[in-house]
């Protein structure tokens, strides 16, 4: 019997030049400067004198093919056939004449794509897969993000923050959504519940033991079967054991909470890059609209907007005013869980008399 024909894949990564707007190809590596004629629009000038206007619009990231085709239709009709996406799922559409900008903006807005996300605005949220597609999620990032962006859309469309604001949302403590000025991250509050009948069949026990950051997991025998046990006094409820061993169920609808972290910054501009810090936890995982998360994010943004100086990112603002003032201005309670006791954590204590009264 003839074997079915197997197609051999063509492996490799191609040159991106054929996907670039012709002006991008012509001026590759030869740009001079840019400005923002209005929120949502970038205007780049090349040393050759060429000019390109980029209109930036938000998307829902998880797009049906109709949405992508709609974008393509608009790009073909009102722009010049080329677009790109940012890491925050914004679509950037280039045109080579200023006259095309306003009609393009109108077409995008009429089709429901908000135009904005440039400069000192609140950009779209970088986020994870959640209940829609992840195998270990504690929440649904797409839903949290949709409800947040419904609240923040005016700040997306305007440039009236001190500096750019980048948000992220992550469905578990692994934080695949990444570091951000404000990050919304699931926080577990109970150790995993172990289904001892399944551990020996599904989990490679030494691997699971090795995953625990606090050495709280030990091999054991339960009902005559090899299993694992957790020292719950040591457990930090991080969920690291769950991916390699799904019978160690970390998710629990009654105890999964949401935490908020602020001041992450990856740019080297002004201060060195820094990770985000815990400022709120214990918020309910309140699907489908997460109002408590929205309220907390709103408070933080309002305080930053009112008090931050031009060009200060969230972390720069807090560096200037200090943490006591941050908690005072946002009204968020300061709790003992914000005092770092992880290894090396004492460097985060104030070993000085620098105190603002």
């Amino acid at each position, binding site marked *: 019997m003839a074997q079915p024909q197997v197609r051999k894949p063509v492996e490799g990564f191609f040159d991106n030049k054929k996907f670039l707007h012709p002006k991008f190809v012509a001026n590759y590596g030869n740009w001079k400067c840019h400005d923002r004629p209005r929120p949502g629009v970038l205007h780049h000038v090349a040393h050759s004198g060429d000019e390109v206007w980029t209109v930036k619009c938000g998307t829902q990231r998880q797009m049906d093919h109709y949405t992508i085709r709609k974008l393509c239709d608009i790009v073909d009709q009102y722009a010049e056939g080329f677009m790109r996406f940012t890491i925050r799922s914004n679509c950037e559409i280039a045109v080579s004449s200023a006259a095309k900008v306003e009609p393009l903006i109108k077409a995008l807005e009429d089709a429901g794509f908000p135009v904005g996300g440039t400069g000192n605005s609140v950009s779209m949220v970088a986020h994870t897969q959640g209940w829609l597609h992840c195998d270990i999620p504690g929440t649904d990032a797409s839903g949290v993000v949709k409800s947040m962006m419904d609240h923040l859309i005016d700040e997306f469309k305007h440039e009236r923050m001190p500096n750019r604001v980048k948000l992220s949302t992550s469905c578990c403590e692994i934080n695949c959504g990444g570091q951000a000025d404000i990050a919304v991250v699931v926080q577990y509050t109970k150790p995993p519940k172990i289904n001892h009948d399944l551990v020996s069949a599904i989990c490679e026990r030494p691997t699971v033991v090795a995953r625990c*950051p606090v050495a709280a997991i030990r091999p054991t025998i339960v009902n005559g079967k090899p299993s694992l046990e957790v020292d719950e006094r040591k457990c930090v409820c991080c969920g690291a054991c769950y991916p390699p061993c799904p019978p160690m169920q970390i998710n629990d609808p009654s105890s999964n909470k949401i935490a908020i972290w602020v001041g992450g910054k990856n740019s080297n501009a002004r201060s060195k890059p820094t990770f985000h810090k815990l400022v709120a936890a214990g918020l309910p995982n309140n699907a489908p609209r997460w109002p408590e998360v929205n309220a907390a994010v709103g408070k933080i943004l309002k305080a930053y907007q009112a008090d931050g100086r031009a060009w200060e990112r969230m972390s720069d603002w807090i560096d200037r005013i200090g943490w006591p003032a941050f908690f005072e201005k946002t009204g968020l309670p300061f709790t003992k869980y914000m005092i770092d006791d992880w290894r090396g954590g004492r460097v985060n204590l104030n070993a000085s008399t620098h105190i603002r009264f």
Partner: protein
Amino acid sequence: MAKPLHPTPMLDELEKGPWPSFITGIKRLAKENDMAVDLLGQLEHSYETRMGYWKGGTLGVVGYGGGIIPRFSEIKNPDGSYKFPDAGEFHTLRVMPPAGMHYDTGTLRKLCDIWQKHGSGLIALHGQSGDIMFQGASSENVQKAFDEFNELGFDLGGAGPALRTSASCVGQARCEMSCFDEAKAHKLVINKFLDDLHRPALPYKFKFKFSGCPNDCTNAIQRSDFATIGTWRDNIRTDEAMAKKWVAKNGVTKLVNEVISMCPSRAIQLKDAGAVTQGDHISSVKVSDSQALEIDNKNCVRCMHCINVMTGGLQIGKDVGVTILIGGKSVLKIGATMGSVIVPFMPLKTEEDYEKYLDLAQRVMDFFAENALEHERTGEMIDRIGLANFLEGIEVDIDPNMINRPRMNPYTNMAGWDEEVAKAEGRKAAS
């Protein structure tokens, strides 16, 4: 026409409000695709019970060991059949987008056609590592969809303990801050390590990211094991007409408060136009007839702030290249770590420069493959063995640019001091 929709009162709440709704999008798919109908059913069940119901598995395409994320529904009827059968298998294909995530509409439409035909029609642009995520294929259709993507010139991304899909910023295509050809470096790296991408055999994941300047738009320092970030060695360039235009528009107060005072190394001063210092490392530009900015480039840390604010008036230098930082990663297991400097500056212009760069990448990958423990990222390995040992392993000389400050404890055996001093003098003589 697809089968009727399940009732989704909770998801319907996410159709309200002005931001584009992914639920409305999936409902559009559900008019003609039963997978989308059952996806909504399963997702509504998740919203009701606040739990996820997907489990992984093993699934791939011929010749590859990774790139497909298998998902099987865990919501079953009492007889073991899927409660939402048309979403019972809902696998993702990770596909590498063009560098910088640039597209033409024709290509995007073809990708849509393939996914409409073989999958659910749901596409994420893009996943957090930078893949196009084609979400929702049956086991049977995974190979068919991949074959068509591959015919179009696209290849799968990474998954598991493998080289992962890379990301590069908009780059030289449209950015005046770009200090190297990100797309070229991106392409060369992926193509050099294709085997590690497609056939997972590393201790754990390994990510490269490429940012054209220290603004680091791909978040390379925090999100990649090997961050390649553009920088320059010579002086900041100036354009008097544009600098004057900026000050005429914004005023001297803003110049002081938003440019000069925010320089992290206090390398910028406002001077009387006649009193500007002359020297090889000084950039200066008149901002009015009487005043000028003076930048001490020896003390500039290339943070980008002043260039971001006065775009055009101040510009990156011409002697461009890259800084390489190694060891960035997220939380698991020791807490998030950033990449730290391994190569302060490396030119990346000539083919010879690229060869040297790729050789370094090879040495780092080889050392990681041989020395990291299972499920240990590069940053954790460096934490465990110490930077000096890592540098010896990858044959890179030490450099004071690698540290924030020297050690503050005496707990190391310094018996080899004289030998190390000789090495330091050798390095000095060689440079």
